């Protein structure tokens, strides 16, 4: 149980790591349903989200911010001749790999020159490469988006936990889409600020300047205060709550708290089972003592002191509980192994836990064996010898 818990928390930590503990994520978000009042849907352009002004304010007015990385996210089909993939096209700046801790595996990311010239170059995510280019090498080839062709200059490393960090902006749930990166200027030129979305058979247009801003903070202990400052700034300049602030560090803390509660629950279950097991051992030992009353009498007659009898029965009880403990440790190692293998969940056995479990089971033997052993020792030898 603890192994599964450790595995879950490890996963959470890994997610946080990919997001970066020094980062704050800002996302544009459609405002609540009640504010979207419109009878003339066809002409209505929904305007919301983070703006370039927000980016400037964050960059210029909040201390402790190292970089603020804007990104536009456009959902489009990407074509390679006849193969089509549904991806998020991310228009961003050259320092994306550094800030988001997501490196290029093959080739290169676009640079400042590409950005300034609004070059039609792109960097592909790993998953889409397999779908778009199942057979040949994608570097240097062109992919088509709408009517434009983009040259592939690099391929990103796989992300361990894309689902969480690249969570779709609007469609909650569903498989996470792979990301493809193009220079921010190119995205601006090609798409402008008004986007058409195909949705439930109809079209919908919206005006969003920036979909995401990733803020990197100089020191990780400043993450919380800086995030508070950003929230204040955004609150003053946005009438509607059309943005979301995600602080990975806060998530990490929440995850830690969840883990703590999880461990507490697991711990109490373990404690209860230990108590039940201990009482079971006590019961068995009491029956054992009663059954062997005569043997106790004989041993006492042959010179055993009370202490000797106590020791004998405590040792027997420890052997009983420790062999149970050994069995438990064995199962405790095998079950997480099986869980990892069959359920695909990550499990981690901390090196101390089998030792701890074994020690505790031995101690249970001592604690719950003591009472039966003392009862055995307290018997009157004459009575014990007469016992049938």
């Amino acid at each position, binding site marked *: 149980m603890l192994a599964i818990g450790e595995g879950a928390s490890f996963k959470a930590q890994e997610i946080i790591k990919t997001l970066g503990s020094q980062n704050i994520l800002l996302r544009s978000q459609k405002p609540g349903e009640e504010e979207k009042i419109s009878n003339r849907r066809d002409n209505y352009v929904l305007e919301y989200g983070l703006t370039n002004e927000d980016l400037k304010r964050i960059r210029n007015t909040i201390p402790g911010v190292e970089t603020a990385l804007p990104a536009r996210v456009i959902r489009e089909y990407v074509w390679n001749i006849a193969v089509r993939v549904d991806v998020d096209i991310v228009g961003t700046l050259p320092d994306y790999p550094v800030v988001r801790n997501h490196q290029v595996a093959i080739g290169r990311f676009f640079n400042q020159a590409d950005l300034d010239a609004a070059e039609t170059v792109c960097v592909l995510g790993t998953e889409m490469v397999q779908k778009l280019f199942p057979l040949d090498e994608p570097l240097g080839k062109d992919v088509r988006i709408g009517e434009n062709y983009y040259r592939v200059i690099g391929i990103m490393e796989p992300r361990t936990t894309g689902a969480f960090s690249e969570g779709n902006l609007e469609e909650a749930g569903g498989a996470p889409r792979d990301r493809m990166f193009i220079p921010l200027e190119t995205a601006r030129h090609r798409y402008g600020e008004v986007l058409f979305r195909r949705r439930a058979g109809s079209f919908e247009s919206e005006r969003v300047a920036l979909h995401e801003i990733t803020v990197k903070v100089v020191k990780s202990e400043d993450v919380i205060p800086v995030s508070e400052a950003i929230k204040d700034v955004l609150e003053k300049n946005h009438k509607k709550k059309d943005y979301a602030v995600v602080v990975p560090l806060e998530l990490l803390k929440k995850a830690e708290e969840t883990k703590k509660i999880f461990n507490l629950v697991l711990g109490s279950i373990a404690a209860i089972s230990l108590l039940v097991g201990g009482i079971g051992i006590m019961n068995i030992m009491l029956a054992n003592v009663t059954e062997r009353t005569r043997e106790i009498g*004989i*041993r006492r*007659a*042959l*010179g*055993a*002191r*009370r202490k000797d009898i106590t020791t004998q029965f405590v040792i027997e009880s420890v052997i009983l509980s420790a062999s149970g403990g050994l069995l438990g440790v064995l199962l405790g190692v095998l079950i997480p192994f099986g869980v990892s293998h069959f359920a695909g969940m990550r499990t981690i056995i901390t090196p101390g836990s089998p030792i701890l479990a074994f020690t505790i089971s031995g101690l249970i033997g001592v604690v719950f064996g003591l009472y039966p052993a003392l009862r055995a020792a307290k018997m009157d030898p*004459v009575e014990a010898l007469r016992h049938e």
Partner: protein
Amino acid sequence: MSPPPNLAPKPPASATSHASATGPIVRLEKLRKTYQMGGTSVTALSGLSLEILAGEYLAIMGPSGCGKSTLLNLLGCLDRPTGGQYFLGGQDVSDLDDDALSAIRGARLGFVFQSYNLIQQLSVVENIEVPLFYQDCPEEQARQIATDLARRVGLETRLDHKPFELSGGQQQRVAIARALANDPLVILADEATGNLDSASGREILDIFDDLRQQGKTLIMVTHDLEVGERAKRLIRLRDGELESDLRK
């Protein structure tokens, strides 16, 4: 109540002297034992005085309820007297605490019971080693002593057998070997032949005769007059008092 008759000849040493080569190995002085049964107290022994010399072969007889078992329990340091004194090898053991009594039992007494009382899960040789174990005897030495004793009672071929694989007579021989393991001052036998057929019983009594010839002190409780007759001294108890004390 009349004072208990003491027909035993007075030993040469004074009654108050400590253990010496010639002093009595067991000396009881006005030993009393009463049991609390609910609200009433039952007197099992009412002031028994007795001296037993080293090397004596003594049989205690008497009807049921005469205090035989009580006397044997007291002699075996399994129980403490309500009054009077018990000197074993010159040491007053009537007021010792539980641990000290255990030590006396382990070092100076050997028990042979009616129902053998071997520990079922241990082998013959391990059963003989039990008293040595509680005397902190080194393992190898204990094994040596136990093997020698098993040979002495004719069980050298059955060292690794469990008690339930042996006949009654063989089991009782294991019990005798066990009683001898710590080289005790006194061997106490409680109806040692009571569960045995007459042939096996005779074997056991033959062993007792041998022991007596080797100078061991034997105290035996029995119902069987034939068995009692083989002892060199016969004591009869009645209602917690000494009825007769005969030497042959």
